[in-house]
């Protein structure tokens, strides 16, 4: 089985984010970048499947030259091959899903595992859109995945509890936080990754184009949070929750 894992380069989730001078984008000076944490969970899941049953894991990233860093890390974790669609163009979720569709077809992938969302724009769309474009079944927000040669059984986290779906392969799975805990990137893996294949291709090699129908008008920092207060008793707490505007558990 060939598993494709799309990964996105995003700012370090622990970094303090600042805006640039005209508030049109975040200031990336000195900012550290990482693999989107949900995508790292997807890589971990794919590599575990590979370790259990001998699949091939291919990671793909769409973006500027620096994405190679994240692809190398994915190879160090245990992916077999990386594809870098090198481009400085802008994309929205649908644009990315369309490029990914071409990659899935080019690679004849059997399964796509990807993060449910990226922590930079939190769009939570690309996986679902890719499923629609390919006309493949999908299971989003996965917290457990069990595979046979022809089916995937996925437990999903929903607002009302857990839901278990079974779907035929090929299909798309998007990962939630509790699916697994990514491993430490072992040093021998980092060294081994240097000799693993990393294909650089362009959009035109895929017959794809950059599409972006979303325009960023401006960005702003979230408003500061006002400080809380201590209550003396449970009764007072309940009273406040019932009657004060904006109070919530």
């Amino acid at each position, binding site marked *: 089985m060939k598993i494709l894992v799309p990964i996105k380069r995003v700012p370090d989730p622990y970094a*303090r984010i600042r805006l640039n001078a005209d508030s049109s984008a975040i200031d990336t*000076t*000195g*900012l550290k970048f990482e693999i989107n944490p949900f995508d790292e969970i997807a890589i971990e899941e794919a590599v575990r499947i590979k370790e259990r049953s001998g699949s091939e894991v291919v990671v793909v990233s769409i973006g500027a030259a620096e994405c190679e*860093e994240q692809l*190398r*890390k994915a190879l*160090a974790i245990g992916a077999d091959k990386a594809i870098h669609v090198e481009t400085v163009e802008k994309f929205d979720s649908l644009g990315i899903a369309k490029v990914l569709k071409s990659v899935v077809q080019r690679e004849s992938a059997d399964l796509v595992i990807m993060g449910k969302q990226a922590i930079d724009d939190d769009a939570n769309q690309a996986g679902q859109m890719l499923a629609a474009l390919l006309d493949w079944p999908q299971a989003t927000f996965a917290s457990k995945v069990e595979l046979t040669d022809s089916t995937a059984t996925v437990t999903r986290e929903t607002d009302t509890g857990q839901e278990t779906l079974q779907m035929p392969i090929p299909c798309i799975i998007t990962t939630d936080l509790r699916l697994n805990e990514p491993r*430490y*990137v*072992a*040093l*021998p893996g*980092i*060294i081994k*990754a*240097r000799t693993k294949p990393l294909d650089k291709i362009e959009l035109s090699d895929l017959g794809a184009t950059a599409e972006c129908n979303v325009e960023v008008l401006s960005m702003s920092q979230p408003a500061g949070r006002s400080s809380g207060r201590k209550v003396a008793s449970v009764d007072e707490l309940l009273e406040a929750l019932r009657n004060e505007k904006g109070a919530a558990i």
Partner: protein
Amino acid sequence: MSLADQATHSSSGGSFLFESHPPIAIPENFDSDVQLMADTAFQFARNEVIPLIERLDEQEEGLMMSLVRKACDLGFGGPDSPEAYGGLGLPKSVATRILEMLSLNGSFSTTIGVHQGVGQMPIALFGTNDLKSRYLPPLTAGEYMGAYALSEEKSGSDALSGSAKAVCDGSDYVLSGKKMWISNAKWAGSFIVFAKVDGQEFTAFIVERDMPGVSISREEHKMGLKGSSTARLILDNVRVPAENVLYHPGQGHKVAFNTLNIGRCKLAAMAAGQVRSALSIGTKYAKERKQFGKPIASFGLIRDKIARSVSSFFAAESMLYRTANLIDRAFASVDPNGNEVEENRKAAEEFQIECSLVKVFATETLSYAVDEALQIHGGYGFTEEFPVGRLYRDARVMRIYEGTNEINRVFAFDRIVKRGLVEKLADASPTTVIHEFLIRGSRAAKDHLGEQEIVACASDLAMLHFASQSANVRAEQLKASGHANSEVALAAASHFEAVATTTAASRLIELLDRCGLSAKVEMPAVSFAGSATVSEAAFEANGYPL
């Protein structure tokens, strides 16, 4: 991979004394692979080691060994040991960076540091292929730990005066004696032991724990590093095969001292990791603790403690990676067709002056940083309820082991004189005030090698020059490359230069007076203004900002 390509001109040991602003290797230029390795090391220390420190300090049975095994599974068992024998064959500078990030806690740092350092390096550098293949694979895999047994009850800094004996008997040596302060003794499977053949020839041996006659005493009751193991190794007529001699009989001092040269550079990395802990604990507490209605982080004297710790650490870190890279380049130029062991010995020896100075400077930076981090905690720092007390106690030994800072000071200036560097220094044109002080001081001190008070002053001048030059060159390189941190780096370098210049002036005055010379020293104006930018950046970053 390494920093080797950065500084293209070749340097020999001690050339920092007279070269003016040479390009140096800086940690910011580690490639993304090394960055990833350092990240793994840091995450391992933060997530696996720090939550266990109380249990480690209680010497919970099996806990440290399992932690070290976990670390070895990730490749931390022998980053710079040869690949053919289970190591990763990484350059010393990379292994140094990894060790720094693993070293957030002193007990774990000493344990893993000794294991991958002095516990293996003598075998990697001086062992025959047979010895390497017998001992390095289990060591790097973490099957057992490595240890280094040089000191004895009556033989510390005067290491060659030990009384452990080896008597040749057929194809074996029979070893007897007591070795003291053996880190990792409890968990070690192999010991690098130094003993005198027939009471004369100082020789290095590999002794296995299971050899009949080997025993380990109870643990020492230490004031710090309570999670590490320190005990005595007792050799009661231990039969060791002659092939377990490292290098040549009678040449053990070369094994001992050259291992320690690189060990000192690595010790600086261990201090560095703990400075990072001190800075993150200190800045965080200062922001939380309120007095007079505001966080104490807003008070000048608290900010100054942080600024001095950061600036001094910036200098220490700059010296450290400059030195580690020089060592890498010395090893890289080892002739593969030459005598490997001889070439290794020369490479390990070349930068002995730098290694001693960075050991002294980094460990004294650590002492300052933990002391002030504790002071920031006020009375709470004096209790065991806060982690800073442990950091303070753990740091104390760093100025003692791997050669006391006193012996390192004496050694460094002695080498400067014996290598004829004072004459070269006399011809150099001074680049900074500290450099001028150094030129003047070393010229006066070179005829007083027997007077330790004078030698230490001269060593300090060399150390302050090395530190300040490294910090300045690094900051300028960051600025030239448009690095995001260059403004803070420049502030730290200039703040450090002000601190170092005033210290250097007082050392020079003492040196000249003790030499019976006029102690009049012209002191230029210096600026401490950089401290504001430095402390601001540290509070913003909740720790070391560079």
